[in-house]
Structures are given as structure tokens and as C-alpha cells.
């Protein structure tokens, strides 16, 4: 079965592939129509390539070449493999919501006794029988981005989470994406999280694979709205298999006096792209968005952030760190847009790359577009290698070269990791970084 969805295979093959997958995609009527529109939007561009400015450094036609066939629903064996992988990445005290091969796995998830004000449904349920307004919201993301459009067309499952007004969730929500790896395939997931007014929640997303899994494609998107006076803490850890592709998008909207703290770390995947749009739509809100790429071999990791300051009196902080070894390639594109009315915006972005090899490449592209005249905005970008004088100091105290490097790398990424407020989650990120460091050499 050839279900290649790349532009390069010609329109007919593409349409056929979509038609073949369609019966397995939840939703009929208006939902199916929207899928068709989304697919057509994808088809107009196909896999994005370097001549599209936003994708200049991540040419998916070269890196990914094709979109793999839709993954089959996981069978018992797949769930067993996923369950084993889950054990390594489970977080104490968190509520697990598990997607295996792009399909919600109730057996591996924890749906028992939800806290007061917490509502959880699956995307499949909502697309098949949910209310039309919610379905429309799920199709809201801009189709001009081809990978968002493809995700809209193909989304199979995900979590729809509601946190009621004034509910303060104690238990973090942990969405775990697991590839079981039966055959090379693509999974398309979309989740939606609404944090009500004056509510607070913590969301962790992990992307992992069962042991020994090779190539697959994880296509994900996350839609978030944070109500007035609400707070969301968000951590995403990309530890996919070394042959995997992870193309994820998120759209986050903040109300007034809201707080969004997000941290992402990519240490897995062959090729990954995380594109986030954060819209600060209410006054007095604060965004902290921090990230770390830990790459080696021939890994390619792209983080592309668009922060839209639409209203006055908001603050934002972006810290991004990349550690690159061998022939790896990190891309950071951070654009901050300050609209004419967004006076008193205070926005800062700092990106630093640490090159451990002469053949590694870091592309840092900070952009500020300021249309208001009373703002404090700044950005900086640096690229360098480990400081020889620090390395010598540590080695003169008995640390081996690898130990000395590891300590300095941990310190380098530490500033970004320190932004995670919750102790357990910070430890989780530190553990993921340690796994990467231990696997070096």
C-alpha cells in the first residue's frame, strides 16, 4: 500500500492516499468537509522546503522526503510494548493520558476520579459526536502552514481537556505519546486544553518510543487557551527514537493577567520541528518560554516561536539553549511581534548555542517587529564552544574530559531548566538531560 503524502509524488497519489485514510478518520459531515479543505490547503504547498522563508533551515522535502502511511490502531502487543516504555517516563503523582501510535489508550491512562473542575474527553469522541462549536475550534488553526493543514486533515485522536473556572489542579496532566513501532508509520494527534478563569494547571507532554523502535513520524498539535487570571505550566520533552520525525505545532492564547510558563527540551528524533504561536491577547499577562536542544550525531532540531504581543502591559521572556555535538543541526527562530497598541510591552529573548564539534551547525534567528513606541524589547544570540579555562580548572581538580564537559553542559542548559517551577518536573528535565549526557562518548 503506497500512501505517500508528499507533493513530489503528484496530485493523484496524494489525493488517493487521503481518500484511503479517510474512512479511519473520526467525524463525518462538516468535520469531513473541513478535513477535505485542510488537505487541499496542504496539497497546494506539500512538504515545506527551503524556499519558504519559515522553513529555510528545515527543508522537509530533503529531510523527511515523504509522509508515511497512517499508523494502524495499536493491538495488544503494541500496547504491551508501549506500557513497558511508559514505566521509564512516568511521573510520580501525575495523571497519565497516553496515546499509542496516535490513538488514545484508555488502559494505559488514568481517568479515575478526576479532580473537581477537570474534564477529559478524547478528540475522537468530540469529532464523532461532540458539539459543532468545539469541532470548529479544533479546526481553527491557520491552514497556511502546510504541516498544520496536514495535521488538521489527518488528526486521529488526542485529548480534549477542560479546566473549569477557579479550579486549581494539584495533579499535573501528563500526555504521553508513545510509538510502538510495529511498522514505519505516521501518527496525527491534536489536543486541546482550556484553562478557565483564575484556574491553574500543569501539563507535561512526553514523546517517547518503545524499545528498539526505528523510524516513524509523530505529527502533533496542541491548542491552548488560558483564561483571565489563570496560569498554565507546560513542559514538553521530546525523547523520540533516533530515527523518528516529530513535527509539532502549538497555538496558545492568553487572556488578561494570565501566566504561561513553558519549557521544551528536545534530545530525541532524527528530525524535529516545534512551531509555537503564542498570542498575548489580554493585558497584564506574562509569558516565559524556554527551551533546550541537546543534539548529536546527525540530529536536526528546529524550534520556531512566534510571540504576538497584541495588547499593552504584558511581559515575555524567552531563553533558548542548544548543545550540539558531531554533525547535528539546531535551528532557533524566535519572532516577537509588538502590535501598535501593545504599549509598555516588556519582551526579551536570548538564545545561545554551544558547539562541541566543528561540524555542528546552529542557526539562531531572533526577530523583533515593533510597531509600538513605548516598549522595552531586546534580543541576543551567541554561539561558542566550551571555555577552555573552565575545562582546565575542572580537569586540574580530577574530572575527566567527559565529566568536565558534562558539568559545563549541565550548567549551560541549567538556566533554561531552572525556569521550571515544579521541583519534580525540573528533576524530570534534568534526568532527560542526564540521559543525553550519559549516552555521549
Amino acid at each position, binding site marked *: 500500500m503506497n500512501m505517500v503524502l508528499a507533493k513530489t509524488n503528484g496530485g493523484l497519489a496524494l489525493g488517493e492516499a487521503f481518500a484511503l485514510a479517510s474512512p479511519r478518520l473520526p467525524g463525518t459531515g462538516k468535520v469531513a468537509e473541513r478535513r477535505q479543505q485542510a488537505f487541499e490547503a496542504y496539497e497546494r504547498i506539500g512538504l515545506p522546503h527551503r524556499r519558504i522563508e519559515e522553513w529555510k533551515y528545515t527543508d522537509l522535502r530533503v529531510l523527511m522526503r515523504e509522509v508515511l502511511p497512517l499508523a494502524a490502531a495499536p493491538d495488544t502487543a503494541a500496547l504491551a510494548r508501549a506500557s513497558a516504555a511508559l514505566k521509564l517516563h512516568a511521573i510520580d503523582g501525575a495523571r497519565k493520558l497516553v496515546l499509542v501510535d496516535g490513538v488514545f489508550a484508555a488502559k494505559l491512562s488514568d481517568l479515575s476520579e478526576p479532580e473537581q473542575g477537570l474534564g477529559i474527553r478524547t478528540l475522537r469522541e468530540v469529532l464523532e459526536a461532540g458539539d459543532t462549536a468545539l469541532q470548529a475550534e479544533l479546526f481553527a488553526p491557520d491552514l497556511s502552514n502546510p504541516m498544520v493543514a496536514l495535521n488538521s486533515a489527518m488528526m486521529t485522536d488526542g485529548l480534549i481537556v477542560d479546566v473549569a473556572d477557579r479550579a486549581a489542579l494539584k495533579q499535573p496532566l501528563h500526555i504521553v505519546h508513545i510509538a510502538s513501532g510495529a511498522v514505519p508509520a505516521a501518527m496525527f494527534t491534536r489536543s486541546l486544553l482550556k484553562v478557565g478563569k483564575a484556574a491553574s494547571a500543569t501539563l507535561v507532554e512526553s514523546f517517547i518510543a518503545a524499545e528498539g523502535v526505528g523510524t516513524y513520524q509523530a505529527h502533533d498539535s496542541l491548542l491552548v487557551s488560558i483564561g483571565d487570571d489563570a496560569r498554565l505550566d507546560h513542559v514538553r520533552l521530546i525523547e523520540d527514537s533516533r530515527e523518528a520525525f516529530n513535527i509539532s505545532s502549538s497555538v496558545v492564547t492568553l487572556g488578561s493577567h494570565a501566566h504561561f510558563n513553558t519549557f521544551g527540551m528536545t534530545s530525541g528524533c532524527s528530525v524535529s520541528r516545534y512551531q509555537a504561536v503564542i498570542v498575548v491577547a489580554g493585558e497584564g499577562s506574562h509569558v516565559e518560554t524556554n527551551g533546550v536542544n541537546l543534539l548529536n550525531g546527525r540530529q536536526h532540531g528546529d524550534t520556531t516561536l512566534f510571540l504576538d504581543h497584541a495588547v499593552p502591559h504584558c511581559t515575555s521572556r524567552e531563553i533558548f539553549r542548544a548543545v550540539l555535538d558531531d554533525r547535528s543541526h539546531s535551528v532557533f527562530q524566535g519572532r516577537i511581534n509588538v502590535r501598535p497598541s501593545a504599549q509598555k510591552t516588556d519582551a526579551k529573548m536570548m538564545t545561545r548555542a554551544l558547539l562541541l564539534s566543528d561540524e555542528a551547525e546552529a542557526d539562531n534567528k531572533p526577530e523583533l517587529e515593533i510597531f509600538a513606541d513605548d516598549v522595552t524589547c531586546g534580543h541576543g544570540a551567541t554561539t561558542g564552544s566550551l571555555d*577552555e579555562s*573552565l575545562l582546565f580548572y*575542572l*580537569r*586540574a*581538580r580530577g*574530572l*575527566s574530559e567527559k565529566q568536565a564537559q558534562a558539568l559545563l553542559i549541565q*550548567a549551560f542548559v541549567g538556566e533554561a531548566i531552572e525556569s521550571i517551577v515544579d521541583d519534580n518536573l525540573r528533576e524530570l528535565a534534568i534526568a532527560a538531560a542526564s540521559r543525553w549526557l550519559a549516552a555521549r562518548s
Partner: protein
Amino acid sequence: MPLLEVKNLQVRVDDREILHGLSLTVNQGEVHAIMGPNGSGKSTLSHVIAGKPGYEVTGGEILFKGEDLLEMSPDARAAKGVFLAFQYPVEIPGVATMTFLRTALNAQRKARGESEFSTPDFLKKVRAVATSLNIPQDMLRRGVNVGFSGGEKKRNEILQMALFEPSLCILDEMDSGLDIDALRVAADGVNALRSSERAMVVITHYQRLLNYIVPDFVHVMSKGRVVKSGDKELALELEASGYAQFEDVAA
């Protein structure tokens, strides 16, 4: 067997020869002072003994406990018992002092085939040493040397010296940047570590430091060689007459 034997050492940096055949023998329990004007090669000697990259040894040898030190990596030298107290200890933001101390101590012990310290044992040991050096606990929680004053940085070097228990301590210009009170505290710390099993090489430009750390031997370096050796009286002589006479000797 001498603890340290430097024999006819010749060292280049880039295309310039800095040490032109330097020899020095240090036995267990001895304290040697190396004095000399700026640019005489004092710090180069300390760096080459510790294994700092960027120096090319073109001749001679360094034996430590009879073994060829130049063949060893800097961390292997540390594990063998060589300790360099830096003239300018570096700041390492993001690496907590305690983490650094424990990683270093356990790395050295592991390299020697000794068991690693457990956390409680380690904490107890550090606290005891820190207290004796007047180092407040909050300094240990900060990044290595981050925000430390000159005196605190030097005390942190001595703390490490006390913790790692090296057999050879090289103190590179320990007095630089210290006022007289800070100098006294640092010198007291060093004196407390003097023992019949441990040797020290005190590198200094000024005689002042040697009032506090009284050496058994004094060597005068000029233009990459030891031009005169004597006992502690030599330092006083230098204080009175300056280095000019030795520059003539070397020329």
C-alpha cells in the same frame, strides 16, 4: 626518592621559549618558594606541572613520585596528588560548589581505586573544613566562585586543597589581589596543611607572603631559569635589593 623532580625543563608557548632548562627538586615535607620578576616563567612552571594545554615541552622531564608527569592527563595528575591553587580561580556559573567538590573528590578517589564518599560523609567532611577556614555555608551553595571576593576565591582554593589532601601543592601568586587580612587568613589555612607528607611550592612576586608562609628553600627565577637558591634569608635579601641583580646574571 624526591617527590618532584624537574630536570632541565624547556617549554615553548607558540614560537617563544619561556623556560630554558629549569631544574628543581622538592622532597616530601618541604616548602619551596619560587620568586622572580614578572615574565620570568614562574606561572608557566606551575601550569606545565598541572598539565594546562597550550605549552609545548621541548626538552627535559618532570618526575612525580618517580613517574613521568608529562605523560599524564591533568585529571590523572590531580588523582596522583598534584594540586595547583590558581592565581585567578575561574567562576563557573551554574555549577554549584558542592556538586563540583563532590564530583572532583569522587573522581580522584575513583581514579585511585578508592571507594567514593557517601553523601553524609562528604557533607560532614566539607563542613568541617569550611568551618576551619571561616567559609560560610551559603558560599558552598553558590556557583563555583560566582560572586566571590578575591579573598573568598583564594579560600575556596585552600578548601579544595584541604579536601583533596594532595601530596604536592603549588600556590600560584596566592597573594595577588589580597589585602593583608585576607592574606593572613589564607596563609593560616595553608600553614594548617603543612605536614611531613606534603610538599608545597609557593610562587610569589613579593616577599610579603613569605612572612606568613615561611619556606624552607627559596629559589630565584629569571628569564626561564633558576638563577639562585638559598634559604628563607634569600627572600629578605631580595626584598632589600630587588631583582635587578639577577636579571644581569641571567643575561
